[in-house]
Each structure stands twice: as C-alpha cells, then as structure tokens.
C-alpha cells in the first residue's frame, strides 16, 4: 500500500496492522475478501489514543505541496504541542481508495474536496460533523465558503484551505499587439474568436485527452446560459439532460466549437497549455494551475485571465467555478479533541498563508488571509472568488463521480468530435443518469 509517513516515530505493531487492514479493505472493495471487511471495523478499537498525536491522511504526494503542508503541521505542533502524524499517499491512489480507506481505520483528519464529493461521505456516515470547529473559525470565511462546507443535513463537515478559479487565460502581450479587447458578452466573445482565427491564431486552446477538461467548458457555458440554480439541479441528477435548457447550452458550445483547437481528444491539457505559452493560441479555459506550465518567469508575468463572458444578462457573470480543497474529520477519530484543535488551526488565515507561500497558483479560502504577498494573478483570482455570488466546484466534484467518469467524460469527448449527434447523446446521458442516480 502507498503508505509513507513523514518519519514520525510510531509504535510499530500498530502501523503494520493498520496497513494490513487497510490492504484488506482495498481488496474487499473490489468484491474480494468480503467476510474480512467486518474485521476491519472491529480492529480499530484496539489502539489506545495518544492525546499528543493527531493522525492525518494526505493526498499531497507532490514534493512542493507536501513540504508546504508539513510546515503548517510544524507550526501547529509548536503552537499546541500536538503532533500531526501524516500518512501521505499518491494523489490518484488516495482518491481511488477513498471508499475503502474511510471504511477501514482512517486517520483522524483527511484531505478532501468541497462539494458533492464531501456531502456524499458525510451522508454515508463516514465523516464526523464539526459544527464546534466552525463556532471558532466561522468568522474567517465568506458566506459562499460556509455553504460549501456544509453537508446535506446542514451541519458542517469540511474546513476549506485554499481555492482557485477557472477562467479564460490569455497573453497580455498578444492582446496588446493585435488590439484585442477582453470580451464580456457572448457576442463579443464569438467576434473575438473569429478575429483570432482570421489572424492565424488558434482562438481557444483545448486538450481533452484526460477527459475531464471538457467538463469545465460545459460548466461555464451551462451556468452562464441557465444560471447557478439550474446547474446545481442538473448536477444533482434532478433536472433532465433532455431539457431544452441543456440543449441551448450545447447549442452555444456548438457555436464556439469550431474555434477550439483541433484534435482535442488526443491532446493533454499540458500540450494545449503549451500552445498558449508559445503564443499560437489566443485563449485557454482552465484553472489557475495552468500557470505551472509557464516555467519562464517573463511568460508567467505576461499571463492574465478574464471571467467567462456573460451569455444571459439575467445571470451575468455571477457564478465562479472555484474548486476548493480542505480537510474533513473521519467517522470515529481516535483523538477527537486534538483533531478539532488541528481543524481550528487549519481554518485560520495563518495556516493558509503558510501554504500559499509554496503554491502561488491558488488563493486562500479565508477572506482574512493576508493578500499583500499575492501576485497580480492571485489578487485577481481572489477578487473574482470573493466577488462571486455563487461558487461551483467543477462537474466531477458537484455530481456523482461515477456519473461524471463513466457517462459524462466519454459523452463530452464524443460531443467535441461530433456536435451534430447532440440529441441522441443527451437522451443517452439522461437514460444512464436515471440508473446511476436511482442506485
């Protein structure tokens, strides 16, 4: 199993048994050693809680964030005297094993995402409500963040740490040179695309090989066309995909599809980003993490973004897609008191500022965090998010992951290639959605 602790000493038998049980849990999730799973739950009671240690499951396997998180926990240990024992797993592995991980003997606190994906585990009873934590940290966060941190039952389950917006990225120098202006309405946007194409640019860079980037394009077009409320209903499986409103969103997409980079299904988002780096593309719809691809400092300073243009004046640009990462408390934490203290610390601007020093592509979830050290891009992102009336989390976080990965990802890849088949595609999505959401 991908079990690597940061080197904190820990009673050896406990470690090995936990690791073993976790492995068994993983096997059971695959429909394997079914009778063994029961043993998993029973096994957790044995280890006596150490009041001076809180365990934490982390998906931050990349070097930079891993170090940044370690600094947060060091600061917490200094302040409270409680040590954080981190169990880091590979990012994707963590996500794929989350089911069995949370059912086995999870760490006290674990990394997770806001939105449906958080509410799902809360509703399954795999997380502990943390209303007590929010009594302390509530003042640090804007209303939109508070809403994101609640489960379906209205209780708090989540402490957000950082967030980042999705937007249309462009090169300032390119816009200046060609005399383009940032479009705020749909008509201006389409005109700009046409002009860019005439000027020999790829208007919108696009790479959908990993199948998730197209979900982001749909999100933007849908909540601009039909508003936040309808978007949420659609994601929750309540609204129908055969609704005329959805069709209208796809019509808008069809209109700008010819201005997207060709051969998108075979291209990774990194390769698509490179066309923006090399100034061959005019715009690129992505999260601020696109900045990672701008390794040259001068290029990075030339990077800017604007919100997806307004489609229906009734909704304007009121919704921002801002995936938020943070922490949850597992179902029966061994050191509940220490875990609450940790979560309270994680909800402070102090903890967020430590993290942001290491990762300049995101912004703090708290409005109290110090923004003076932000780069211009971070400042803009911060303003965009704090000015939003609604925040969405991205389709695969706002809806059932099984629906988005097995139905929406292939369907949107198909749409990109063959926009004419949209009607049969939408009815196929609706049929599959019904089965998945019924289960």
């Amino acid at each position, binding site marked *: 199993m991908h079990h690597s602790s940061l080197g904190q000493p820990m009673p050896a038998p406990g470690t090995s048994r936990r690791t073993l049980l976790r492995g068994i849990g993983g096997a059971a999730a695959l429909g*394997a050693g079914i009778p063994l799973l029961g043993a998993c739950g029973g096994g957790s009671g044995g280890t006596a809680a150490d009041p001076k240690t809180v365990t934490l499951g982390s998906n931050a396997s990349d070097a930079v964030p891993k170090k940044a998180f370690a600094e947060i926990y060091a600061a917490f240990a200094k302040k409270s005297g409680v040590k954080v024992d981190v169990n880091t797993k590979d990012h994707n592995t963590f996500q794929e094993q989350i089911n069995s991980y949370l059912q086995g003997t999870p760490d006290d606190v674990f990394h997770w995402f806001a939105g449906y994906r958080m509410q799902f585990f809360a509703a399954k009873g795999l997380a502990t409500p943390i209303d007590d934590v929010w009594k302390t940290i509530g003042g640090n966060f804007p209303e939109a963040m508070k809403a994101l941190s609640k489960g379906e039952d209205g209780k708090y389950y989540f402490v957000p740490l950082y967030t980042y917006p999705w937007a249309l990225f462009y090169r300032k120098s390119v816009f200046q040179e060609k005399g383009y202006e940032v479009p705020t309405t749909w008509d201006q946007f389409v005109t700009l695309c046409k002009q860019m194409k005439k000027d020999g640019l790829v208007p919108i860079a696009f790479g959908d090989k*990993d199948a998730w980037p197209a979900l982001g394009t749909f999100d933007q077009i849908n909540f601009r066309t039909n508003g936040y409320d309808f978007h949420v209903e659609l994601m929750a499986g309540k609204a129908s995909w055969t609704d005329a409103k959805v069709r209208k969103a796809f019509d808008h997409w069809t209109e700008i599809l010819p201005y997207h980079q060709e051969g998108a299904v075979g291209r990774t988002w990194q390769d698509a980003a490179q066309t923006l780096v090399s100034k061959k593309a005019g715009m690129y719809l992505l999260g601020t993490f696109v900045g990672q691809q701008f390794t040259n400092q001068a290029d990075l300073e030339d990077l800017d973004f604007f919100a997806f243009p307004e489609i229906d004046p009734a909704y304007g640009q009121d919704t921002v897609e801002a995936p938020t990462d943070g922490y949850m408390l597992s179902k029966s934490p061994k050191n509940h008191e220490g875990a609450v203290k940790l979560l309270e610390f994680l909800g402070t601007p102090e903890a967020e500022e430590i993290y942001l020093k290491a990762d300049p592509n995101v912004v703090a979830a708290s409005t109290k965090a110090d923004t003076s050290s932000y780069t211009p891009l971070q400042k803009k992102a911060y303003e965009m998010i704090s000015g939003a009336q609604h925040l969405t989390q991205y389709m695969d976080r706002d809806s059932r992951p099984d629906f988005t990965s097995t139905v929406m990802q292939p369907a949107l890849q198909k749409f990109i290639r063959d926009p004419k088949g949209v009607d049969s595609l939408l009815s196929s999505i609706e049929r599959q959605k019904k089965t998945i959401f019924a289960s």
Partner: protein
Amino acid sequence: MNPMSTTDTSTQSPEAAAVPSPGSARARSARKAGQGHRRLLTRRDRLTLGLMAGLPTILHVALVWVTALASIALAFTTWDGIGFDAIKWVGLHNFTELFTNNPQFWPAVEHNVIWFVALILVPTPLGLFLAVQLDKKIRFSRAYQTAFFLPVVVSFAVIGFVWQLVYNPDTGLINSLIGANEPGRYIDWIGDPDLNLWAVLIAASWRHTGYMMILYLAGLKSVDPSLREASALDGANEWQTFRNVIFPTLRPTNTIVLVVTIIEALRAFDLVFVFNKGAEGTELLSILVTNNIIGESSRIGYGSAIAVVLLVISLVVIIPYLVATFRKERRA
C-alpha cells in the same frame, strides 16, 4: 473449508492419483511407487504435504474461486462499496442496462473481437515468418532474435507510453515527420475513433510479433531434421517443404499460439489504458470494468456484470479447448 479437512483430502490425493486404469504399464508402476510412498509417510511428512498442498489450495480457493463467485453474485446487485447493508438485489437489471443503455458496451465487445482477429491475421504470420527465417541459422541470428523479442520483455504500460509519444498529434514522431501537426492538417491518432484502435493495434502487434516468433522458433527447433531431409530428397522446394511437412508438425505450437492470442485479446488493457484511457474508438471490456469498479463511489454491481460478460466469453472460448485437450489425453 477448515484447514483440517483440507489436510486430509490433500494427504489422500497421492493415493487418488495413483488409482490405475488396469493394464497400462505406466499406471502399474505409478501404483507401486504410490504404495511405497505411503509406507514411508510419517506424521511429519503428512503435515508437510498437507501444508504444501493445503495452503496453495486455500489461497487458490480464496483468491480465485471465492472472488470469482462473489463477483458473479455482485453482478446481480447494485453496491457502492460502502457497508454490506448497501448491497441491493436487482436481478438482471445490470445486464439489461448494459445491453441496451450503455453506449460503450457493444463497441467494447467489438473491439475485443477486432483485437483478436488483428493479432491472428498480422503479427502471428509475421512471427512465424521471422521464426522460419531465424531457424535457418543465418548470421547474427541471436542478435535478431533478441531485437524482435525485446518488446515482449517491456511491460505494456511502457509500450503504451512510448507509442503515445510516437502518435502525439502535436509533438509526436509521425505527425512531425509528415507535417500533420499544423491546424487544418491534423491527424489525431489518439483521439479519432476511426484511427485510434488501429494505432493501438500496431503497438500491440509490434509486441505480439516477437512473442509469436519465440513460440514458433521453439516449435521449429523440435522439428525432426530427418523430415526436412526426406522432403528434400523427394524434390520438394522450400515452400512445399514448409507447407506440407514443417507446418503440419507445428500443430501443437499452433494450438498454444491460438490460446495465447485469445488470452491476449481478452486481457488487453494496460496498453490502451495508458494510451488514451479507452476513449471512444478504443473501448475494451476490461477498461469498462475498471472504470466502473475502481475509484470513489464505485458501481461495483454494474462493473461486476461487465466482468461476468468477460468471464462468459472466456469460458466459451476456453471450454472447447480444454475438452479437446482432455479428450486427446484420454486417448493417449
């Protein structure tokens, strides 16, 4: 099954194996050996034997049979993998859903079949051809052999990664060479459903050719040289010798090749998963199983139903083969 009973049955198994079909000399000697063996068995031997036979049996039953049967049972349920009370019996619903509503299912079946047919039609004859050439003891035969076999040693995941670099639409080898990486002239080897299956099959064939070559080379080495001599004396040319003398003696090898190729076609997964995750045009049953089962809030029942379809296909292919093999053994 408790460990005691396993021990018992397995200690008896040498005896059971030794029960002879009367008359055959081989069986009689086996019985003698069996009886001699039994007298020598101490308590400790029995225990050792029991452990040696019992442990693998338990592991086999637990890891193969229990899991396979559990997977079949789960195919008739829906389950998100969280808690056993969440398992709901739905009868054949998963299957009707799969056959009628899943836009990826039938293409996946079709692609698995195409995979098999393509492997039989291209790399298998090619491997045979290479094996025949290498069997002629030409110079540097060993070096060629190594070169052709090397792709078989490399894992499919690595092959997928390497070929994905070759096919990359913007920076890949092919598009860069033929100048198809400009807007308006794109050839999307990875994303275009009319192309990507063939692109992947070239990569798969590249590996399969080496595999087939080694199998046929081993088969050719066992061909009695006097057969060639005799056919040469009869005045047969090279092609006639091959067609009428050598190829018929390769029959056992052909059977192995057929089985290996069927297995390769059914278990095809890693190459495509790395190549483009089974996007439209390259859907495979194994990838559908993975996409539905692995990951958060998994559809374990539905994924199991796909796995059962895959199992049934394997059985349909393997059972006739096993029946034929056993019948042959009994005759011999």
